[in-house]
């Protein structure tokens, strides 16, 4: 007797559990019950679990009966003719979806040749063990699994043609690659997913070599000439938005060119790009500080209205302007209404992004790198045939990471470009490396993919033959233009008087605890003091009470002791503002911290 559970709820018992389970599977394959029902027979616990609920990850498998897969040549023929679809196969019970539990009872053959009478299922394709993004890595079965994961993660960050209606959309941080291409070395998944409709990379000529160390430590060297011709060029879109908020008392924000009388009015220059409606005009080149959407808000406190009740100009300025280090061209303006019924103005900024030093590139094999230099066209190494690489990749990236697929793709791409055909690199079903090499040989190139190269600067022949070919390279969304920042002095935090943090606030780079330790370890105490004096402050200390005094404006800014008034000697002491804050906090704890002053010398 075996317990039966439906969706983990006990419903009853059954005597012949094996038959019961078989019946359910049979009914499902016949289409009598939903194909989303899965059944799991736990032989050890004497339980049968029938699952019909949501949230189970399931995967398709070909059903095997008596050592023969149900999927026949005839099915395949019909499929290619377009007479039936995948879902017809599911309906016919040729293919079924198993969840993790039912898989426990299944015996799945990996390839058709392995099928025995004991098998219950056959994989649809051996590549089914990877996900879609991972299957986009060509020759993936030549790699360590972790590199495949990195490779597929990189692809998700690639710039491409993400939507055909991008020019009508207001996406946050959208990038469009200017001349996206379909990869020469593809996988079946590229076809299945209509990759040609939304490609996200370009086929580049890649040379694996060093060139003056500009590609050391995972750098890449770009051909400046190729970049000028539009290689990996992209456009960056970013919306700026403003809403007319409603406040209590019927007061509302107003999108308009702010009046000069208004509180917090900036300079006229800042408003120069605004049209009459208070919104920037399309194709205006906006820079840091320029107002994109002019807006005024009602005064923050109503009481302030009373003071100047005659004047109307008590509205606040609340325009949206470009922050530190931002720029762009106003591309497209939308005026609409949001969920709360407030007027919403959105301006999309556009910026052309030409590859520059510091931009990130990657192949599809987890071999990402940052541009080290844009070589001027005349300095690029060239092959005997006059071929010039678009990108120079470092050989040191291969040895430790062992991404063999990277090397094979290069050969595959070369064959593809020379022969005018696509090369298939599908996981476990790729064209053989040997065939590709032989094909290369027949095309009149060296079998190992190397070619003789000349140094572009000296014209001298290089001592080593260079491994060169075509590869699908992706430009990643991490661009220096979005990240680069520096500061010598700038804004500070109100509470601690220490420099602000983060790019948006024009902040500094923190010299943290461990960095501080290195200064001390070097014995550079005076340098440390200098580095940490950003919040340095001079405070009058009462020599009698050891408390912080204050300057009294009525007594000619004389320092006054909080305990002894004018009857105490006050000394000006330099300390960090953070310490002054600490002393304040001590007092709030009820601790009387008395500073005993002593001459340093």
């Amino acid at each position, binding site marked *: 007797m075996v317990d039966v559970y439906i969706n983990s709820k006990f419903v009853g018992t059954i005597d012949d559990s094996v038959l019961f389970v078989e019946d359910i599977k049979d009914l499902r394959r016949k289409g009598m019950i939903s194909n989303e029902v899965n059944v799991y027979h736990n032989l050890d616990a004497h339980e049968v679990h029938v699952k019909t609920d949501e949230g189970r990850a399931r995967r398709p498998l070909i059903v095997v009966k008596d050592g023969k897969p149900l999927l026949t040549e005839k099915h395949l023929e019909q499929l290619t003719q377009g007479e039936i679809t995948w879902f017809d196969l599911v309906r016919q019970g040729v293919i079924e979806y198993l969840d993790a539990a039912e898989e426990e009872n299944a015996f799945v053959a990996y390839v058709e040749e392995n099928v025995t009478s004991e098998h219950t299922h056959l994989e649809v394709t051996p590549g089914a063990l990877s996900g879609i993004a991972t299957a986009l890595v060509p020759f993936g079965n030549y790699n360590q699994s972790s590199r495949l994961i990195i490779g597929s993660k990189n692809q998700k960050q690639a710039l491409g043609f993400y939507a055909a209606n991008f020019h009508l959309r207001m996406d946050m941080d959208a990038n469009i690659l200017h001349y996206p291409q379909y990869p020469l070395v593809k996988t079946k998944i590229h076809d299945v997913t209509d990759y040609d409709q939304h490609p996200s990379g370009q086929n580049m000529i890649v040379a694996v070599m060093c060139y003056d160390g500009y590609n050391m430590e995972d750098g890449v060297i770009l051909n400046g000439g190729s970049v000028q011709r539009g290689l990996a060029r992209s456009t960056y879109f970013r919306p700026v938005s403003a809403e007319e908020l409603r406040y209590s008392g019927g007061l509302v924000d107003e999108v308009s060119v702010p009046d000069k009388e208004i509180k917090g009015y900036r300079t006229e220059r800042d408003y120069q790009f605004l049209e009459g409606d208070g919104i920037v005009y399309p194709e205006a080149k906006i820079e840091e500080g320029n107002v994109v959407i002019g807006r005024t808000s009602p005064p923050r406190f109503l009481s302030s209205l009373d003071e100047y009740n005659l004047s109307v100009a008590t509205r606040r300025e609340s325009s949206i302007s470009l922050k530190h280090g931002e720029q762009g061209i106003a591309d497209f303006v939308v005026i609409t209404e949001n969920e709360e019924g407030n007027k919403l103005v959105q301006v999309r900024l556009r910026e052309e992004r030409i590859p520059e030093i510091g931009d990130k590139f990657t192949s599809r094999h987890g071999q990402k790198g940052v541009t080290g230099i844009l070589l001027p066209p005349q300095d690029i190494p060239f092959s005997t045939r006059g071929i010039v690489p678009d990108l120079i990749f470092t050989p040191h990236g291969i040895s430790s990471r062992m991404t063999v697929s990277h090397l094979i793709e290069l050969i595959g791409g070369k064959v593809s470009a020379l022969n005018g055909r696509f090369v298939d690199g599908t996981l476990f079903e790729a064209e053989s490396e040997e065939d590709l090499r032989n094909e290369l040989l027949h095309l009149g190139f060296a079998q190992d993919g190397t070619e003789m190269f000349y140094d572009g600067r000296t014209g001298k022949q290089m001592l080593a033959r260079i491994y060169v070919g075509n590869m699908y390279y992706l430009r990643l969304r991490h661009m220096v233009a979005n990240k680069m920042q520096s500061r010598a002095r700038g804004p500070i935090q109100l509470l601690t008087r220490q420099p602000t943090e983060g790019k948006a606030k024009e902040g500094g780079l923190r010299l943290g605890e461990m960095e501080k330790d290195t200064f001390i370890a070097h014995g550079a105490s005076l340098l440390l003091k200098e580095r940490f004096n950003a919040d340095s402050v001079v405070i009058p200390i009462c020599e009698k009470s050891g408390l912080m005094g204050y300057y009294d404006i009525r007594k000619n800014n004389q320092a006054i002791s909080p305990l002894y008034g004018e009857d105490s000697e006050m000394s000006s002491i330099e*300390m960090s503002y953070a310490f002054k804050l600490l002393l304040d906090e001590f007092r709030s704890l009820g601790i009387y911290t008395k500073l005993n002053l002593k001459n340093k010398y």
Partner: protein
Amino acid sequence: MKKEHEEIAEKYALLLPPAALTEIRETVPGTISKEKLEQIFAETIAAYTAARINPGECVGLVSAESIGEPGTQMTLNTFHFAGVAEMNVTTGLPRVIEILDSQKEIKTPTMEIFLKSEYNKIDAVRKFAAAIKETLLGELVLEYALNIFDQTLRLKLNTAMLADFSLSVKELVKLLKPKTKGFTIEETDDSITFIKKGNKPEEIKEIYALKEKMKVIKVKGIKSIKQVLPVKRDEEYIVLTSGTNLKDILELPEVDAVRTTTNDINEIYMVLGIEAARQSIINEVNKVVEAQGLNIDIRHVMLVADVMCSNGAVKGVTRYGVVSEKASVLARASFETPIKHLINAALEGEIDNLSSVVENVMINQPVPLGTGLPGLITKLK
């Protein structure tokens, strides 16, 4: 050493550490000329002065960084080999933390027992290992039968195991007798029965308590030696144990007390004293460092061990140990539990002389190290 040589040695005695002096005394041949000896001393002193750390050199932080940085590369947990007859010892970062925090209860206490050469034969080692393993009565009992009406407890014994341990039921009874007052004992070939003396109220409490007590009675071996594993290491048999009891093991006649050791530093401190504990800290940290394939200069570890043992007891590098002895309130408060330290300092009216590093960083004054160390000697008028 000759008298004239001794005079020269006397002259330099204050300039050299005792260890260096002794070494010169022991290695220099007696036939050496006075000039040569003078030269040896001069060169030794030169080498010694050159090797000395300069005043104001921040040794503590350099050690901290030199241990801390490679520490980040340590694999957090080592692999566990299921089913392999190998002792599983904590290594890696957890072990380093254990040592440096001077934790009282370490995760995997183990001993390495070396034997005197006459016992170093495989049979003798096996016998010794079996003899020191702590065996509890509970391990020998197959079945406990409680009878509430008769107030009896019958232990059915595993005779095969008894034979393994060369124990007879008689011996067991002899062992148990003093521990079971109030019960009479009856024995058969494979069982022992305890019968309550006097009146017999029908309750389970007393015999149940007896049953629980029986389980943990030590029959054989040395307390807290839970497992033994004789292994061969360089032509010699040693016994690894899980569980440690340094004091009792060292008293056994077979044991080579000089080399036998445990990884429980606090136990070493209790049994062998602070110098042994200091050396043990160094050895144990070094073991981990070597196992992880790291490269840490031993002097950094020695410095930490010195700090931990500096006042005669092993103190961990924790807020209760080394850090609690810092002179500065601000320094203590900046480590852990600041409020506690500040309030206590306020209650006691503690004075912070701002004489060390952290305090001075806090108030943005030069730290008294390196370039911040020198000051004016001349008094200002």
